[in-house]
C-alpha cells in the first residue's frame, strides 16, 4: 500500500491517510489502533502486529464533538474526537490515549464512554521528567500497556517481536532524519511540504512499507542546489497543520532547517537502543532523550535554550512558532518565550492555527509581511 510512493502520492496520503489505512486493513486483516499526541510507545503496539496510527485531527466540520468538548478546548482534541466519532468510526479497533494536559486529563474517560464496544486504554506517562521516579514510571506504564494489549488481543509478544518492531521504527526515523539533512542543505531538492508530509505520514501508516518508499525517494533525489535563496528558519510548537501551511513556506522560500515540533524532530529523537537486552528499559531511556514538550514539566528554561541552540547551530534567521488555538499549556509559555527571543535578538513570528476555522490567506499575509520586513532589515 505505501511501499512505492513518490512525493506526490505521499503528500496526497498525508493529507488524508484514512482511506488507504482502511484498504490496508481490509487487505491484511490486521487491527488498527489510534493514539493522540504524544509519546505513546508505538513500537509496543506494532509488536502485537497492530497498526498504530497517530490521530492528527481533521479539518472537516465538527458535528458530535462540540456536545462533548466545549469550544474552549484545544481544537486538535475536538477534531480528533470528531474524526473517530464521525468520519472514521468504522476504522479503529481500539485507542491508546495519553494524559498530558488539562484538555486530555479526562480524554480517555470521554472516549471510553463514547466507544463502549471498542478497546480504549490510557497511558499515563509522567508529566515531570526531571527526576528518577519518572524513569520508573515510564517503564511501569510501558509494561502496563503490554499487559493490556496482551489481554485484549489474547496473545503475548516475545522479545524478538519487540526487537523487530523497534528496528522498523528506528529505520524509519533514520531515513527521515537523512531526508531532513538533505533538505536542510539543499532546500530545492526537497520542499518543506514534501518533508513534513513524509514526517506526518510516518506517524500514521505502516512504517515497514513506508521505509521502502523513503529509500527510493532518497535514492532518486537529483538536483542539489545550495539553497542560498532560501531563508533558514527554526519551527517550534506542537504540530503544524494543515500541511498547506508548508506550501506558504515554500512560496516565500523559507527553509525549515530545524524544529522542535512534537510531530517533527521530537519524534525523530525517539530512536531506541536496539542492542539493549531489555527493550522495555531501552524504550524508557528513549523517552528522556526527546526534547521539550510544553505539557511535560522539565527545566523551565529548556524550550528557550533549545531554540537558541538550534538557531545558532543552523544559522537560522528567525524562529516561527505555530500555535494551536486554546492550547493552554503553550499559552503559559509564549509570553516568556517571546521576551526571551527578543532579548536574544532572534526574530520571532507566531502563527495561530485552529482546526476547522483556519484562514490560510490570513496566515499568508502575516508570513509575507514578517519575512519581507526581515529581508528589508538585511538579516
Amino acid at each position, binding site marked *: 500500500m505505501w511501499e512505492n510512493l513518490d512525493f506526490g502520492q505521499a503528500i496526497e496520503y498525508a493529507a488524508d491517510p484514512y482511506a488507504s489505512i482502511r484498504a490496508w486493513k481490509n487487505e491484511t486483516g490486521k487491527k488498527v489502533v489510534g493514539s493522540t499526541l504524544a509519546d505513546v510507545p508505538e513500537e509496543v503496539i506494532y509488536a502485537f502486529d497492530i497498526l498504530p496510527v497517530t490521530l492528527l485531527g481533521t479539518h472537516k466540520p465538527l458535528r458530535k464533538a462540540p456536545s462533548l468538548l466545549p469550544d474552549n478546548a484545544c481544537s486538535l482534541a475536538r477534531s480528533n474526537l470528531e474524526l473517530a466519532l464521525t468520519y472514521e468510526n468504522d476504522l479503529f479497533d481500539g485507542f491508546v490515549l495519553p494524559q498530558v494536559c*488539562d484538555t486530555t486529563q479526562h480524554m480517555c474517560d470521554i472516549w471510553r*464512554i463514547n466507544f463502549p464496544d471498542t478497546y480504549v486504554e490510557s497511558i499515563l506517562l509522567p*508529566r515531570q521528567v526531571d527526576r528518577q521516579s519518572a524513569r520508573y514510571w515510564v517503564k511501569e506504564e510501558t509494561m502496563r500497556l503490554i499487559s493490556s494489549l496482551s489481554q485484549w488481543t489474547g496473545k503475548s509478544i516475545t522479545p524478538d517481536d519487540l526487537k523487530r518492531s523497534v528496528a522498523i521504527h528506528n529505520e524509519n526515523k533514520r531515513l527521515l532524519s537523512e531526508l531532513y539533512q538533505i533538505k536542510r542543505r539543499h532546500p530545492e531538492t526537497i520542499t518543506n511540504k514534501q518533508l513534513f508530509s513524509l514526517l506526518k505520514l510516518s506517524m500514521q501508516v505502516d512504517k515497514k512499507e513506508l521505509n521502502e518508499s523513503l529509500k527510493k525517494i532518497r535514492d532518486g533525489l537529483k538536483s542539489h542546489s545550495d539553497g542560498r535563496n532560501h531563508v533558514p528558519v527554526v519551527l517550534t510548537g506542537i504540530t503544524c497543520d494543515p500541511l498547506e501551511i508548508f506550501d506558504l513556506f515554500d512560496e516565500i522560500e523559507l527553509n525549515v532547517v530545524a524544529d522542535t515540533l512534537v510531530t517533527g524532530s521530537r519524534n525523530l529523537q525517539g530512536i531506541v537502543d536496539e542492542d539493549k537486552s531489555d527493550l522495555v528499559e531501552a524504550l524508557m531511556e528513549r523517552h528522556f532523550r526527546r526534547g521539550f514538550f510544553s505539557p511535560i514539566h522539565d527545566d523551565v528554561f529548556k524550550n528557550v535554550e533549545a531554540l537558541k541552540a538550534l538557531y545558532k547551530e543552523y544559522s537560522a534567521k528567525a524562529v516561527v512558532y505555530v500555535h494551536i488555538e486554546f492550547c493552554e499549556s503553550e499559552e503559559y509559555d509564549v509570553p516568556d518565550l517571546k521576551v526571551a527571543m527578543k532579548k536574544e535578538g532572534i526574530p520571532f513570528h507566531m502563527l495561530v492555527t485552529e482546526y476547522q476555522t483556519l484562514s490560510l490567506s490570513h496566515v499568508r499575509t502575516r508570513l509575507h509581511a514578517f519575512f519581507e520586513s526581515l529581508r528589508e532589515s538585511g538579516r
Partner: protein
Amino acid sequence: MSDKMSSKDLSKKITKEYMDEAFHAHDLGKMVGYTTAVSPVELFVAHDIIPIYPENHAVACLSGRMGTELSLATESMGYTSHLCAYARSDLGYRKTGKTATGGIPDPDLLLACNAQCFTLTKWFQVLARKGNVPMFVWDTPEYIKDKKAREEIIKYCVMQLREMIAWMEEVTKRKFDYDRLKEVMKYSAESSLLYKKFLDMAQYKPSPISIFDALIGMAIAVYRRGTQECVEYYQTLVDECQAKVDRGIGVLKNEKYRLYWENLPVWFKFSDHAKLLGSYGGVILTSLYVHAWSLEFDLDKDPLLAMAEQYASVFSNSTIEDRADMAVDLFKRYDMNGMIMFMNRSCKAVSFAVPSLRDILVKRTGIPALVFESDMGDPRFYSETQIRTRIEAYFETLDRLRL
C-alpha cells in the same frame, strides 16, 4: 461556652496570624513555599516551610470583583483571556500590585501537584522563571479503576514524596523530621474528619449550611491543614452547626429544592446566586469541589503512603465514572433533588468532564440538570440575563416535576 471565640472570629485570628508569619518568614528564619490547594502540604508544615496558596489570594481578588481588571493587566503581558482566572488574577496582581487583601509574600520555592489540574504547574512555571525559584511537580497520574494500576500509581506517588523531601532538604539545608510529620498528619487527619462532619451537616432538613457556608468554611482546611488551630477551628464550626440543627435552624425556612453544584463557584456571584436560588426555595448544599479536602488519612500507615492515597484519589484526578459515583453518593446522603452544572471556562481540567458527567448523573438520579457556561472569576464571560433566565426556567421545570 460564652468565652469561646466564634468560628468567624477564630478564622480571622488564624488567618491574620498565618499571614503575619508568612510576611515575616525570613525574619523568623523560615521559607515561603507556594503550593496548590490539593497538595501534600503536610510536608511543608512539618518542615517549617510556610505554605502560601496563590489560588486563595486569587479567590479573594475575584470575589472582590477585581477579575477583569487584573486579567486585563495579565493580557497586556501577552497572556490570553481564556487562561485560568486564578492565574490571570495572580499574574495581574504581580504586575500591578493591586489586591483585595494585603497581598502575599513572594515564594522561595514552588510545589505544584497536578491532581487538581496541570494549569497550576504551568502557572507556577511562569513564577519559577520570573523569580528563578526552585520548583517541584508532584505528578499524580489519573487514578484509574484498575486495582493493580492504582497500586503502582500510589507507589510512584510515594516515590516522588521521598524525592520531594530530599528536594526540600536541599533547598532549606535542613534535615527533614519524620516524627514531626507524624504529628502534623495527626492534626491533618483530625481536622479533615471534622471538616467532613461540617460538610455533612447539609444532610439535615432543613440544612443548616449551604455551599456558600462550605466555601467560606473550607478556607482554613486549605491553608492551615496540619496544625492544631485548624482542628480547633473545625471543632468550633461543627459545634455551631450542630447547635443550629438542634434548634431546627436552616439556611432557608421553606427549603424546597436541595441542590448539587458541579465545579468551582462563580466567585464574584457568590451572594447573588444564594439570594436568587433562595427566592425559589432552592439551596445549594454541596459539590465535589468542597469535598476535595474531606480527607481520610489512615494514621496506621506510613504517612507518605497515607498522603499519596488521599491526594491521588481526589475527585478531579478520578475517572468520570468514579466522579459520578462520588456525586451519586452525595445525592443519596443529602437527599438532593436538583443539580446545577457549571461549565467553568477557567477550569478545563474539571469542566471538560462535565458534559459526560451530566449525562451519567441525569441517567442515574432521574433528576434534570441545569447547565450553564461562564467563568469563575471574570465577569466578561458572565451573561446575567441569560443565566437568570435559565435558572428561572430550571425551577419551573422542577416545579412541574413536583406536581
